[in-house]
């Protein structure tokens, strides 16, 4: 735990632990459950969206994140990506 804290303090990326994999799988499973689509379709959607955004911005694809957020009576699909820089050559 202290190691991880130090890694975090110094901005080092901690190696992927099994719970990180669990969390990723869980998130994806929940999005699929809610949209009632297969994981396959969701991954394709993600690939397509990343491709479109990448035409205009340079993004960190490893940090790209697709999620469902729920408010009282409505679920929304939320995409999150760090933008590294704008492409000047489009």
């Amino acid at each position, binding site marked *: *735990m202290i190691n991880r804290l130090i890694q975090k303090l110094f901005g080092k990326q*901690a190696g992927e*632990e099994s*719970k990180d994999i669990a*969390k990723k799988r869980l*998130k994806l*499973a929940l999005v699929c459950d809610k949209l009632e689509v297969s994981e396959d379709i969701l991954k394709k959607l993600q690939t397509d969206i990343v491709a479109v955004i990448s035409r205009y911005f340079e993004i960190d694809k490893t940090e790209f994140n697709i999620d469902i957020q729920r408010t009282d009576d409505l679920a929304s699909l939320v995409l999150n990506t760090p933008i590294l820089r704008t492409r000047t050559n489009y």
Partner: protein
Amino acid sequence: MDGKVIVVTSGKGGVGKTTATASVGAALAQTGKRVVVVDMDIGLRNLDVVMGLENRIVFNIVDAVNGKCKSRQAAIKDRKIDNLFLIPASQNDNKNAITPEKMVEFVKELKKEFDFVFMDCPAGIEQGFENAVAAADEALVICTPEVSAVRDADRVIGLLYSKSITPKLIVNRIVPEMVERGDMLSHTDVLDVLSIDLLGLIPMDENVVVATNTGTPIIFNNQSKAGNAFKRIGLRLDGHPDLPIEVPSTKSSLWKKIVQKFAVKK
């Protein structure tokens, strides 16, 4: 004044619903509240053995709901805690022996006599779940830090919201060593994924198995981390909603306590 009716549910089986119902019920009864715990797992009753009351069963929930006996006759008094009662499930009926409408009527009567009515839900989201939830004002969702349990919890939380119940979460069977080395989802990971408020965190604790062997409430064992965590949940449910949630940890070194202070904030 009417009592609170709380359903304990999870979706997935074996995550600790029955243990939590018995323990939180006992904790509240020990502080002087009048508590009845109702086993809604018709056909697979368990709460009676966990509480050590299996030899005293005469009537059951199906009898009581269908008017074959008075609710007082079906409520078995606990051996050790005066204000604690159990209404056992029936072992031979099927789940259709009760309907949500009848359950609502029955619980209305119970509410008049008890400060807290806890309903221990069967696994799944079918008839038994519907029967219990129909009569509930509040819900406790139990999950363990595993992908399957959290996913099922999410499903149940969605169903509860659709019935206008805002549930609270208990994460059970936490193994701090595993969380600390990154091999088990932490409670913050679980809360990141689920849209729900946290009520309590229960560590994996061998004492739970020992207490279940003998049918004694785990809250009687002051050395038990799980027992103490259940007591804190009782307090949070009854008059002390701001009691801090303790995060299970391996050792309570000062350093870890400091780290936790930052980790618990939410």
